[in-house]
Every structure is written in structure tokens, then in C-alpha cells.
């Protein structure tokens, strides 16, 4: 049978970011999928050689505009490890608050894009409309909507005043209410299920074997969430990883959907427990040594490796992002799908190419 070769991307409306897939299909069934990346590779790990470890906070925060704050937090935590300092407790809690806000905005953004991928425009609009509240919260509390730059080595730069806390909680309540209203659409709508249930199945074994991370892994039934390791202040908060077992796109979207609600809960918990303390720990000297730090990004486990020999600049900053880890599993599930499922499945892993390629 004749094959149709589809150059899917790099410039493609369903892809917010450039990535390329060469798809060979027959009657729109994918027989072979070959990925190509490199359209967003900037090479910013190398910038560590010309930016000092403080400037690097801003650089790694710009690895990705969606999960930016958590990048910076993870990097700072790694450098703090090398320096042997601990941020003050309030900073740890604030990092949790902003991290979870980021997770909410990232997941809401994703849910919208995902809805768009199967042609549900009004749902996309709705999720993004809800998301704007979080953006407002970030702008008001941290001074910028997207890249909030609150982290510094040793702690955070910004604080939440009591009024701000109250306001944030009320905004978060609103978001929770609105999101919960869409639960039925995401989980029970006939057309949505038709497009997602059983599409792009990744079994538990495959997920582990291929090194999947985050919701991709949890959607396949593996309860693995870096927050369980208790970094920042997560150890002091009640937290259960969200797990689904079917391993299909529907399961993955459910994981993210439920994580939005879980994030709301974590924000509330953190706010309730917010301790009083300094915002940042002062330190002297330059880092010397190496450290590995893992945190949970919206897309899964993020790993920072930082090495320094005490000079002005760091020796090496290595970022292993969750999407990078999720590419092999993605390649494994593509063959056999329909062309129309490609956006759904590609998005169900929640690709973030700027993270992947750095």
C-alpha cells in the first residue's frame, strides 16, 4: 500500500514548540515515526562557564517558561547542597507555594492544549481562562507572570504578606471550583473519551523500561513522584502521589487533572503552616564540590547535576528534564496510531521541548 510521508513539524499549529516527526502512514495509520529535534537547542548548560553561579539562577529559570520557577528552585537547592547551607523554613514553604502554583498553571495550560489537540476549542478556552487567575497571582506576588525569578541561592527574594496570602487562597479556591466543574467533561464526555481512551497505551513495564517520568509514569501505574522524597518543605506536608493504571492518554490526562486539585490542596497546606523566618540564608565563598538534586516538575522528575571546583564559574551544570526522559516512551507508542491521534498522544506526554533541548 502506498505510504504517505508527513513532515509533522517543526512549524505546525498543534505543536506549540518546534519538534519534527517524520511519519510514514498508510490510510493515516502510523507505520513508522522518526523524531528529529534540535530546533530549540540553545546550549545553555555551557553558559555556566561564563555566568557565575548567581547569574545562572536566572539562566536556568529560562530553560523553560512553563516550569521556570521549579528549575531555579532545583538549581538553587543543588548549589545550596554544595555550599552546605539550608534555606530558612519560610523560604522552603514559599518555594512549595510557588512550585505548586507553577504546577497548576502548567497543568491548566496543558489541559487546554490537550483539549485543543482533539479539537475541543471551547474547553481549551475555558482552561486557559481559569489559568489566568494563577497568572495574576504570580504577577501580583512575584512581579512577573511567567518567569517569576523568586529564587536566589540560599532562599527566596519575595515574601507573601498576610493580605496576599488571603487573596491567594481565595483565588485558589476559585480555581478549584472552576476546575472541578470541568471534571465531567474531561472524564465522561463521549467524544473526549472516544479520542483518548485506549489511545497511546504505555504499559507499566514499558514505562519503567523506557525511563518514563512524571504523569507519563504515574499514568501507567507507577507511584513515583519526587515530592515523596520530601525536598523543600514537602516532607512536612500531607501528600499522596496521583496514580492511574491504564497507561493511555485518558489516564495521563486524568493524572494531570487530579494533580491540579492536589496542588490546590498543597498550596492551602503550605499557607496554613507557613513559618516565620528569614527569607534567605547568607553564605560566604563560592561552591566547591558536586551535587545532584531531583525535584518533581509538572512533567515529572527533573535532575540537576552541578559541579564546581571553587572558581568564579561552575564546572558543569547538567539538566536532565522529564520530557527528555519521555521521548523514548513516546517513540515507542506512536506506531499503529492514527494520524489524528498524534497530537493527542504527543501532547499526552506533555512535551516541553525547551526543557528537553535546553
Amino acid at each position, binding site marked *: *500500500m*502506498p*505510504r*504517505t*510521508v508527513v*513532515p*509533522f*513539524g*517543526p*512549524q*505546525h499549529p498543534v505543536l506549540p514548540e518546534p519538534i*519534527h516527526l*517524520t511519519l510514514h502512514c*498508510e*490510510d*493515516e495509520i502510523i507505520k513508522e515515526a*522518526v*523524531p*528529529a529535534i534540535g530546533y530549540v537547542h540553545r546550549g545553555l548548560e555551557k553558559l555556566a562557564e561564563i555566568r557565575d553561579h548567581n547569574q545562572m539562577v536566572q539562566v536556568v529559570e529560562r530553560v523553560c517558561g512553563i516550569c521556570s520557577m521549579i528549575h531555579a528552585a532545583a538549581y538553587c537547592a543543588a548549589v545550596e547542597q554544595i555550599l552546605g547551607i539550608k534555606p530558612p523554613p519560610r523560604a522552603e514553604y514559599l518555594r512549595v507555594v510557588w512550585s505548586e502554583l507553577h504546577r497548576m498553571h502548567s497543568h491548566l495550560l496543558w489541559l487546554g492544549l490537550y483539549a485543543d489537540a482533539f479539537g475541543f476549542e471551547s474547553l481549551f478556552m475555558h482552561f486557559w481562562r481559569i489559568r489566568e487567575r494563577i497568572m495574576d497571582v504570580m504577577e501580583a506576588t512575584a512581579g512577573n507572570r511567567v518567569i517569576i525569578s523568586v529564587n536566589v541561592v540560599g532562599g527566596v527574594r519575595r515574601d507573601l504578606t498576610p493580605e496576599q496570602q488571603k487573596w491567594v487562597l481565595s483565588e485558589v479556591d476559585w480555581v478549584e471550583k472552576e476546575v472541578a466543574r470541568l471534571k465531567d467533561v474531561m472524564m465522561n464526555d463521549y467524544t473526549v473519551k472516544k479520542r483518548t481512551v485506549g489511545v497511546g497505551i504505555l504499559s507499566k513495564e514499558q514505562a519503567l523500561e523506557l525511563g518514563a517520568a512524571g504523569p507519563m509514569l504515574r499514568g501507567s501505574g507507577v507511584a513515583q513522584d519526587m515530592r515523596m522524597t520530601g525536598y523543600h518543605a514537602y516532607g512536612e506536608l500531607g501528600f499522596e502521589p496521583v496514580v492511574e493504571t491504564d497507561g493511555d492518554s485518558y489516564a495521563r490526562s486524568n493524572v494531570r487533572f487530579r494533580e491540579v486539585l492536589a496542588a490546590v490542596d498543597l498550596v492551602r497546606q503550605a499557607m496554613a503552616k507557613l513559618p516565620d523566618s528569614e527569607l534567605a540564608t547568607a553564605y560566604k565563598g563560592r561552591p566547591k564540590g558536586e551535587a545532584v538534586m531531583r525535584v518533581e516538575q509538572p512533567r515529572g522528575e527533573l535532575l540537576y547535576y552541578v559541579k564546581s571546583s571553587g572558581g568564579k564559574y561552575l564546572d558543569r551544570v547538567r539538566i536532565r528534564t522529564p520530557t527528555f526522559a519521555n521521548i523514548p516512551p513516546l517513540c515507542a507508542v506512536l506506531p499503529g496510531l492514527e494520524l489524528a491521534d498524534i497530537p493527542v498522544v504527543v501532547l499526552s506526554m506533555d512535551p516541553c521541548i525547551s526543557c528537553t533541548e535546553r
Partner: protein
Amino acid sequence: MLDTLLFILIVLPFLAGLGCYVLRAEGVRSLIVVATGGILAAASVMLYFQTPFTYPVEASVQATLFGVSLDEIIMVADFLLLAVILYFGVRHKNAIIVALAILQGALGAYLEFGLIEHAPKAYPTFVIDTLALVMVLIISIVGSLICVFAIPYMKEHEHHLHLPASKQPRFFLVLVAFLGAMNGLVMANDLAYFYFFFEVTTLCSFLLIGHDETEIATKNAVRALWMNSLGGAALMIGIVWIYSELGTLEIAKVISQQHTSAAMLVALGLLCFAGFTKAAQMPFQSWLLGAMVAPTPVSALLHSSTMVKAGVYLVVRFAPAYADTNLGLAVALCGAFTFLGTAALAVGQSNGKKILAYSTISNLGLIVACAGIGTPTAITAAILIIIFHAVSKGLLFLCVGTIEHGIGSRDIEDMRGVYGKMPVTALITMAGVVTMILPPFGMLLGKWMAIESSAGSLFVIVMLALGSAITVLYWARWAGGLMSVEGGEKFKTESQAALTRAPLMILCFGAVVLSFLAPWIYSDMVVPLIKLSPYAVAAGGLQSGAGSFAVIPLFIVGLIGFGVAINALRKARSSHAFDAPYMAGIQSPAVAGAYTGPMNKPVVVTTGNYYLSAVFGEEKLTPYGNFAAIALLVLMFALGGLF
């Protein structure tokens, strides 16, 4: 005058064929074929001015050929023919053919020597009404054009095969003689004659299909032979049965009234069955598909003007006899089912000739369905479809043949972008497709009539509705693919043998002009036959209480639109602002039709049609389709005979 005409139309082709066979020089052969074609065409046109008439004019006079009674010649020839078929059956070790040939021989002998009282018959041997005329025109003009086309085609065909000795003499013998047999068949008023010519076409097609003598050709030829022998046997049984019921072999008599007795309906059912086999209706479609191995002119001939048309001619001819009976309904169901089933099968094909084959069967199904419905509008539809289908389908086969010789493939995937290489042929093909499926052209006129006249029959209409939608799918994607070239290359003229180009041009022109003339064809050809005028011809359109089709106004509007569109195309071509196709931003600057893919390597973009093989695949669909078709056939006899 009349006997000369009949002689030219029926006997001349046989003689010309023999001439080709005996005088083996290529030039002579070409001359004979072209001349015969011309004479046949001229004769058929002259026939037009004589119609209707019977021959001999005096019913009591007996027709003779060179002084010998024609009846006797036919009788002897009949047995000879069966003997030849028997011979082939034995030679190819096919028990079915042998058994059927013996059965037919026995029945024929029983009929000739047991049943018939050999008194001089009191009815004319040939009756030429407008239906016969339509058929003769198609056979003699379209058929002749195909024979002419075959001259350069076969030369090239044999060139590819590197044969030690040319087999063309035999080929043209059969090809040209075929036309004579068909002419005889459609004009015969005597079932015995009809049977004879019917069997001649069977034999001719067998010989033509097996012409290349490859293993597959022989296999398919044998299959065609046994399936058609089945039809021959059914025809023979039917004839015997009719004779025993009515005591006559006169066709005009049989169809002069409606029959309602179970016995007659079963007999007529057998006739229809014979028609189904010949017209390759499901479940007999496989022989016609197998026939695709033959050189393309053969396919063109079998599909457009001869052979399969004999089958539908039979069904349509006898339609008045079973109109308004359960048999009629059953025939309509069978036809509609074939229409739908083979249209669906065509979707799964990428072989251009197979698509054409399925489409032929599908359209024949439509004709059969109309015959089964049997109302005046339905018969009108049937006749119009016969005409327009012959022209367009003949054209399309010739196009495929030409393209095949040009690009070395008959696969529609390989025909993508043929416009870049063979623009004229591609355009003609496009025109052929358009005349097949779109208004205001004749095929669609016929389909419209078919749908409107079967609107009263639930199952039939549902199948027709589905089938016609599927039809659009497989034609349109083909036509679109032909044009699939990048950029705006200059229109290159394409050189072609005159004998190739002329038939293409004439048929293409004919398809368009005939469509334009549809209202007049209707009032000239159809009205005299059905002796009714279900449609009023007004303002260049056809109207009935149930609907209206403004042929001429649509043509005019279409022409204006076409003119504007062509003008836009010219402008676009001359502006030279061409742009690479959209390929997600990575069109390769270096390699045409490619993009820069993984690892920075160029990837050539290929595209393929959808064949929906999971549903419409031949292997998937054929068993179910055949099963259902057989069930319908059983139903047909049951309905006809029992209720």
C-alpha cells in the same frame, strides 16, 4: 438497402477479421481495421435514419445469406461453436466448461430437433428498434474507435513483449469479429440467434483474455469461459423453458406483455441470470476483473461497447416482460447490490484498470437495477446510462492504456503527477472522470433518473444512495492525483501517434457533446422505445412531475464558469509566483519534493490515497459480497417462482 446495412453491420466484421488474419502485413491490417471501423460507423449512422424497421420486412420471408437459409447457418454454427468451447474445456481440463457445453449441446439439440416444429417462421429475424439502434451505434462507433486505437497500441505492446512472431492477426480477427457478433446480438429478434451471438461473444472474450498466453492470462480466460458458460447454460434453459411455455422464440412476442406466471418468471429469471453473468454482476465479477490481464483495448472493448453490454442489454430488453413483478424487484435488488458492492470494492483498489473494472460492474448494476424497477423513467435511465457509460468508459480505458505505455504502470499511485509528463492525456483522462461523475454530463443525468425512479423502493434507494457517494470517492481522488505536480511547469505538448490521439479526442469530444445533446437523445431514442414520454423536454432540460434537470442551462453556466476558471489558471501560470508546497517549514532547498528531515537528511514526500483496506479491501469484502449476492440470486428465483 436494409440487407446491405445488416450485412455490413453483422457479417462484414467477420470478413474483415478474416482478412486481418489472412493478410498478415501490418499496413494492410491497419487499413482493413480503419476502413472497417469507418464503414461500420457510417453504416450505423445510416441505420439511424432507417430505424425502426424489421428484417425481413415481410414477416413471412425468410432471411438468407448467400442464398442459404440463415436459420440453418445459425443452427449449424451454433453446434460448431459449442464444439469449440468443448474443445477448449477439454484442453484446459475444466470439467465445468465441458459439462456445461455438453448440457447446452444436448438442450440445443432437444430444442432444435425435439421441440420446434420447423415450419417457416412467421416473424422477422431482426427487429431494429431504438434500443437496438443505440446499441449498434455504440458498438460500431465506440467499438471501432477502440479497434483503431488497438493498432498502435498492439504494436507497442508486442514491442515490449519481444515475440518471435506477431500474434496480431489472430488478435484483430477476434477483436473485429466481436463487433459483428455484438451487432447481431442486439438486433436479433429470434432467441436462437440471440443465443448464438451470445455464445460467440463468450468465445471471443475467452480468446481475447487469453491472448497473451501467460499463465495468469490463461487461467483468467478459463474462468471467464466457465462463468459465461454458466450464463450460456442458463440462457439455453431459459429459452427452452420459454418455448415450452409460449411456443415461440420471438423476442418481440415475449416482451410484448407482462408475465406473471411462476413458470415464465423463472424462465425470465434464467435469462436475467445469463445477463448477470455476462455483465459480471456480483457474484460473477471476478471474471471481468481477471479479464484485465488482456491488452487494454480488449478491456476497453469488453467494458464499454461489447460483452458486458450484451448482458445488460439482455436484462433491459426483457424488462417489459417482468416489469412490476417480484422478479423485477429482485432484479433491481441484485443490480443495486452490485452497484454498491463493487463501488465499495473499487475504493480498495489502486490498480487503475481494476478500478475501471469495478466501476463498470457498478454502473452495469445500476442499469440492471433500473431495468428491474422497470418504470418508464427507470428504463430511460438505463438506456441513457448505457450510452454515456460506453463513451466515457471506453475513453477512460484508452486513457489508462495510453498512460500505461507512457509511464509503465497502471497503478493510480504511479499516475500521480502524470500531468507533468503527459499533459494532454492527463487532461483527457480528467475530462473522462468528470463526465463520469459530475453534472451536467450524461452519466449523472442517468444516475439522477435512476435515483428518482427508484425512490419508491426502500432497499434499492438506500443502496443507490450509498453507492453513488462511494463512487465519487474513488473517481475524484484519481483525477486529483493526476494533476499532482509541483509548481507551474509550462504546458508541454505531448507527441502521440495519430491513431492513438484520434480515438481519445473523438471519445472525449463525444462524451461532452453527447451529454449536451441528452435531451434530444432522450426524445429521439428513448421515447419511441417506451412509447411514453415520462419527461417533458423544455428549455433544454428534462422535467417530470418528480424532478427536473436543466441540462442546457447548466451546460451554459458550467461553460461560463469553466471559462473564468481557465482564465484564472492562465493568469496564475503567467504570473510565475510559484511557491513550494507547505511542508511544515522545512522544504528542502536542494531536492525537489523533499524536506530536510531527521539527521538533516532530505526525505522525499510521497503521498498515497486512502484505500480503507480494513473495510474495503478486496479480500475482506469479496467473500461477504459474494455471499450476499448469491443469497439475492436465490431470493430472485424464489421471489420470481414462488410468490
